[in-house]
């Protein structure tokens, strides 16, 4: 029964995620006006990056997996960018 302990990276990632969760909830109650949204989404992105890199083992994968994982995000960016463009520039 060797090697049942979780790798350190996983545990650290888990703690980091919970800490970031606490941080983002706290920050939400601090009046920062427009920066509340920025903070929430930035911390969300950091959490997502940790999940992807550590839990989903993306850090140990080759460029092809990166491209596949990135393609979804890239096209999401196109959808949001060109979609919002209309609504932000209406007269």
């Amino acid at each position, binding site marked *: 029964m060797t090697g049942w302990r979780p790798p350190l990276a996983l545990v650290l990632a888990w703690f980091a995620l919970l800490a970031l969760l606490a941080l983002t909830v706290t920050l939400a109650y601090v009046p920062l006006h427009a920066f509340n949204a920025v903070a929430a989404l930035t911390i969300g992105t950091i959490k997502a990056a940790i999940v992807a890199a550590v839990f989903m083992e993306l850090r140990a994968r080759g460029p092809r997996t990166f491209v596949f994982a990135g393609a979804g995000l890239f096209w999401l960016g196109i959808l949001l960018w060109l979609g919002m463009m209309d*609504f932000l*520039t209406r007269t």
Partner: protein
Amino acid sequence: MSEDNYLNAGYSLRSWFLTTDHKRIAILYFASLIFFFFIGGAAATMIRIELATPQADLVSSDMYNRLFTMHGIIMVWFFLIPSIPNTLGNFIVPLMIGARDLAFPRLNLLSWYLFMLGGTVTLFAILAGGVDTGWTFYTPFSTLYSNSYVVLAVAGVFIAGFSSILTGLNFIITFHRLRAPGLTWYRLPLFIWSLYATSVILVLATPVLAMTLVLIAVERVLGVGIFDPRIGGDPLLFQHLFWFYSHPAVYIMILPGMGVINELVSCFSRKQVFGYKFVAWASMAIAAVGFLVWGHHMFVSGQSLLASLVFSFMSFIVAVPSAIKVFNWTATLHKGSIHFDAPMLYALAFIGLFTIGGLTGLFLACLAYDVHATDTYFVVAHFHYIMVGGMVTAYFGGLHYWWPKITGRLYSEYWARASAVLIFFGFNLTFFPQFVLGAEGMPRRYHVYPPEFQVWNVLSSGGAVILAVAYLMPMFYLGYSLFFGRRAPANPWNAPGLEWQTPSPPPEHNFDTQPVVTRPPYQYSPDFEAEPQNA
């Protein structure tokens, strides 16, 4: 020809309906698509008959609206999108890249079942009373005002969408992981490149449609939703989401056709495709830039002028790779040794019709002219030139080209050429007058119309009769060849592609020995006279 092949590997229903053999699944798709093509075609016939006179005489307005909606939904989602990828693609892709099967054979079968389930639900919606929203499902008409079976139809399309996604996923992984030894990316036939581009769109665009359809269903069921103008929702948001899928979907409907044309032009000019890398990357460019142009469906909808400007610009950009392809096909003919067999006639028809469709696309990309032409018959003619003149012609071309491989039989060359020529003339007679109608200002989806448009409508309806006959002809001579046609040799066109290096029809396991590729594609010898091989 008593050897074992995939057709005589089993005769039970189970051996067909639970098969994971990509070749049999292709046949299942083929049979289903013929069925849907005839349903969609029947609706088109009714529409053209009705439009022969300006008044309403054959059907009521409600019925007419249901007819063109049914024609659109069936033809787009249940014929054009799966047409080449799921029949020819499914059959030929593993053979072309020297693989035993697709990467996920069971997923492939699941994809067919989802397709049939979606088709059944949609047909049920049609039989239950039909849908009258147009295939575009524009809100708030579809969500709050239509009295027809919108939710059911939307559910059918939703399910069929997942079938598309699974097919795209399967192809992408197959191309990455299952190529034969030595088959590098630049040694792949261009058909594979174009299917790769198609799959990217299938995987990345279809989910947005799925979500949009869910939102329609929610709004219809709850009576309130995020597109509802009564609570401050914006119907244009629906259009953005819908066209984010549906414009790239147009490229789903043409890229595989372009891929087939590469194979045909090259084979029947006995020459390499001119500018291989340009054509390959043009496919990828179309897939990528095709995602940036959707707003050109909305130039008069009230979207911001800046958005219109950007989308118009992108629409012109996406035309560049298409132009590159046309020029390269033409250059391929140069110094070729051109044979005018039936598939080549289809290919030439494709180039002509696709170019007309593409050039009229520029009219519509052009902001000021689109204000006049959008939602008129000009648009109808334009996209039929691309989808019917382009994709369906390519589909027929590819079907004739690979028919000997798929069935192991040769069809009648005489009748095949006759039908190719007839399709070309019938098609132009049907759809060219519609450009004139559109330029004159006749709106689309009109059941009755001012009498001065009648002349062109009569021409168009007349052409439709010819076209219908021309599309029926292959049913007969191809059907005849199944039973009475001469046995096809393994390589009737003396082509170097891997799919021709195995017997016709191929054995269940595709290749007796794993092929190894050592040279670029399209290394044709000038003649059909086969060198003695497989002797």
